[in-house]
């Protein structure tokens, strides 16, 4: 299935004085996709989002919206919606007015927006009815109907989040941009809002671009992840591709719930792979587990029992730290005792020792 791109960034760079924040990046946002821009803080992901929105201008490169260059257009003209990390609700307006603002700016003349005169301005009552209808519908979807007359200061974090989403939804934008929208919520609410966001994405059918530093958020929600490292796109692809075939050592480190084991040639782990003495070998803890006939042997240091699984920290004879995961019913041996570990050879990743780039495994 090929989907036509809604938004494309081509050869995009952004410099502030001497500092290069974005260095020649290409990103494509297909129709109906849910894209996560994933990276550590300072990697340029928020700048990328701001350039997509039109809040910032690129130093070089093109921003194409439905194939047309939009670099001279404002966000509103591009009809792109954005949800901010701090929600950025207008504190003096009610929930209704906050959500209605993009519509009043579009449908009412500056005369019609005025407090008292507005009521008698030509065509304004029709526009007002339309706005009330749209805001009401969005509020219904988001469960905000009872809060429409409240001010943002009396809302909880989750409610503010919904209002910010509502303000983005009401005008049916071509693209939703979300800048770490869940980072100010507590853990339980965050998981709940994740599901709501995915549902909202399905409902609107519009592409979402979601900035986050949390790889589990990206993996859980997105169908395309763009990993950004140091102002460059390190890898872009489906979550499964990123997990199964990380393009570099850095991506492998970033993706995955448990930090990947990386064995340097100097660590001397000959049992892993014939190329172990010239390349870095990556092996995720979840693919390494105790097995009676395993190829590796190491001494157990600590074991964290998590119920469904046990995370083992071990140390090889040469002192290399190894993390492995055992099933929850595994009988934990005494600390210091040797444990044999087995793995699927197809789960190994090889990376060039100098460049960190992925090497294809010939096994």
């Amino acid at each position, binding site marked *: 299935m090929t989907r036509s791109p809604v938004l494309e960034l081509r050869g995009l760079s952004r410099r502030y004085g001497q500092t290069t924040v974005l260095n020649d990046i290409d990103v494509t946002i297909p129709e109906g996709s849910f894209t996560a821009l994933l990276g550590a803080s300072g990697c340029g992901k928020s700048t990328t989002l701001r350039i997509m929105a039109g809040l910032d201008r690129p130093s070089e490169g093109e921003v194409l919206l439905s194939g047309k260059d939009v670099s001279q257009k404002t966000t*509103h003209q591009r009809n792109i919606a954005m949800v901010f990390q701090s929600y950025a609700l*207008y504190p*003096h307006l009610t929930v209704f007015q906050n959500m209605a603002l993009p519509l009043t700016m579009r449908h009412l003349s500056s005369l019609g927006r005025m407090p008292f005169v507005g009521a008698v301005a030509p065509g304004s009552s029709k526009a007002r009815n339309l706005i009330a209808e749209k805001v009401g519908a969005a509020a219904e979807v988001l469960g905000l109907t009872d809060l429409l007359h409240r001010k943002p200061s009396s809302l909880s974090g989750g409610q503010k989040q919904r209002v910010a989403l509502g303000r983005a939804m009401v005008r049916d934008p071509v693209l939703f941009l979300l800048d770490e929208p869940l980072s100010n919520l507590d853990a339980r609410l965050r998981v709940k809002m994740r599901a709501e966001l995915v549902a909202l994405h399905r409902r609107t059918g519009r592409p979402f671009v979601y900035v986050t530093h949390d790889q589990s958020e990206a993996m859980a929600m997105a169908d395309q992840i763009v990993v950004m490292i140091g102002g460059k796109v390190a890898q872009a692809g489906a979550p499964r591709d990123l997990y199964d075939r990380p393009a570099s050592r850095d991506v492998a480190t970033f993706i995955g719930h448990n930090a990947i084991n990386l064995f340097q040639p100097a660590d001397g782990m000959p049992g892993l792979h014939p190329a172990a003495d010239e390349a870095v070998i990556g092996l995720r803890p979840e693919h390494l587990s105790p097995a009676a006939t395993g190829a590796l042997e190491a001494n157990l240091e600590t074991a964290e029992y998590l119920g469904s699984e046990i995370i083992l920290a071990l140390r090889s004879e040469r002192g290399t730290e190894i993390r492995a995961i055992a099933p929850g019913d595994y009988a934990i041996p005494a600390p210091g005792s040797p444990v044999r570990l087995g793995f699927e050879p197809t789960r190994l990743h090889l990376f060039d020792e100098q460049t960190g780039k992925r090497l294809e495994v010939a096994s």
Partner: protein
Amino acid sequence: MRRLSITRREALTDLWLAGPATLVMVLFIFLPVAIVAVLSFTDYQFGAPSFAWIGLENYSKLFGSTLGRRAISNTLIYVAIVIPVSVGLGLAVALGLHRMMAWAPWLSQLLRTIYFLPVAATLVAMSVAWQMVLHPSLGVVNQTLAALGGTPQDWLSDRGLVLYTLAAIGIWQAVGYNMVLFLAGLVAIPPELYDAAEVDGAGHGWSRFWTVTWPMLGPTTLFVMVVTATNAFRVFETVATLTRGGPAFASDTLVYALYREGFIYFKAGYASAITMVFFAFLLILTLAQFRIVEKKVHYR
């Protein structure tokens, strides 16, 4: 030794911290005000051995006489000009300088200092400079006017003009202070709100101002208005040094009248009545501003 309970000890600490200041306030502010309030119902003169109760006579004199009414109306006109103009100008200058920070920071800093100078300078000393500037024949203002083909004016001795001249000086002095307060308010506006306004299509010109800047400056504006109003009501230095309330009481104000009656004619009773009226005006104005604006400013 018996130890006090924690609540007792905390209460004692609170008393220690707030007590002395409260005591001094009561002794040196509330008590004198009470005495002034009492004196305003007497015919007491400074230095006199006795006084008589005369009820509301001082007040009826103030509100009944042409002179008293003139002082009140002059003060109200002065305040009515100085508040809106100096708040409006202060905001305009602050907006300009704030935007200028983006492309010419040094110029913005320089202008900010220049605007702030009148605030830092002593108004009495500045009045001398104003006297020179406004001099009927030698002053810069009239010379410029003449050069441009206008008619020179007697800025400080024309009965119809003098109050407005003083108001202009008052504005000149207040703008810098208001500007600094507004600048602080502008810096505190979260930049995401401007981004949000941009996304919502309210990112330019007036819509940006009405959607973000003005509402977010609400608390600052309230504070600036209260401060400006209090200062405007207290106008004294310029009157005392430039006009002495003249010509023919055309620039007489409440505080100058109070000074004249109290400290030149030693009519303590009458001066006390003026003081009470002055207090009342200030109180009403401040309360009204808080009542009306407070609700619309903190967005609860």
